[in-house]
């Protein structure tokens, strides 16, 4: 029972930690294109990231570091949500589409292996 409690407590801690981390996301530059046509927004996002796999990192003698999650939001709507592995290309390019309208702001947030988050925003054209 104690163990269970501990486990639960640590989960709670982790959860609160991630929640607390959310506002501390760093703004970075990303290439984002988002254009609306007939109620559908087509978006193209390019993120500068090494996407070092475990194998590559080992060879270079550095730590692996890759994007583990990418989220796209407009207001409080989630319009893109991908859990990713180290096998996205270096400087990943993603394309997706969602129901939205011109003038809204698209926010792309990504999390890397150790939990740091980065974001960028772009107005939908």
């Amino acid at each position, binding site marked *: 029972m104690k163990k269970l409690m501990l486990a639960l407590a640590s989960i709670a801690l982790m959860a609160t930690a991630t*929640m607390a981390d959310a506002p501390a996301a760093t703004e970075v530059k990303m290439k984002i294109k988002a254009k609306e046509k007939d109620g559908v927004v087509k978006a193209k996002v390019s993120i500068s990231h090494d996407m070092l796999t475990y194998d590559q990192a080992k060879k270079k003698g550095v730590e692996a570091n890759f994007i583990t999650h990418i989220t796209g939001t407009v207001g409080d709507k989630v319009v893109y949500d991908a*859990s990713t*592995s180290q096998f996205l290309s270096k400087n990943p390019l993603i394309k997706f589409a969602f129901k939205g309208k011109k003038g809204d702001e698209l926010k792309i947030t990504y999390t890397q292996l150790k939990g740091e988050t980065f974001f960028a925003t772009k107005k939908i054209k």
Partner: protein
Amino acid sequence: MKKTMLSLVAVAAMTVSLSATDYRAEKPDAWTAHDVPTAIKALYGEITPAEGDIKLKAPKVASNGGAIPVSVKTDIPAKSIAIFQDANPEAAVVVFAVTEDMVEDFSLKIKMKKSGTITAIVEGKDGKFYSKKLTLEVALGGCEG
């Protein structure tokens, strides 16, 4: 005290799941599995996906294994879409959590060490699973950089 703890946990968990589905946290085994069937099993359990109307696109011969454009598109109302391959040390590449606001048309660039097969699994809203496979040749492996 215990009760408050528990409810706190519940609240925290709910807040997290509302914002996004983190398949890495939820299904950690799926990301370390070395072959496609094991990864699929870790992610979705025992499933027998049917051949579905999924448009999975990638070049037949990829000149650069470091950035292979892959796209998956379907009209099946989906809860999630996952992409796997069998050329790298681990099988999972990406899992999309699909919401009502999305159009099911995703493209991205992936890395593949050697020639292999890409598998897309669509988890339908009807609880059924659909899959599509695509084999391609990789001229220059992309995992060693």
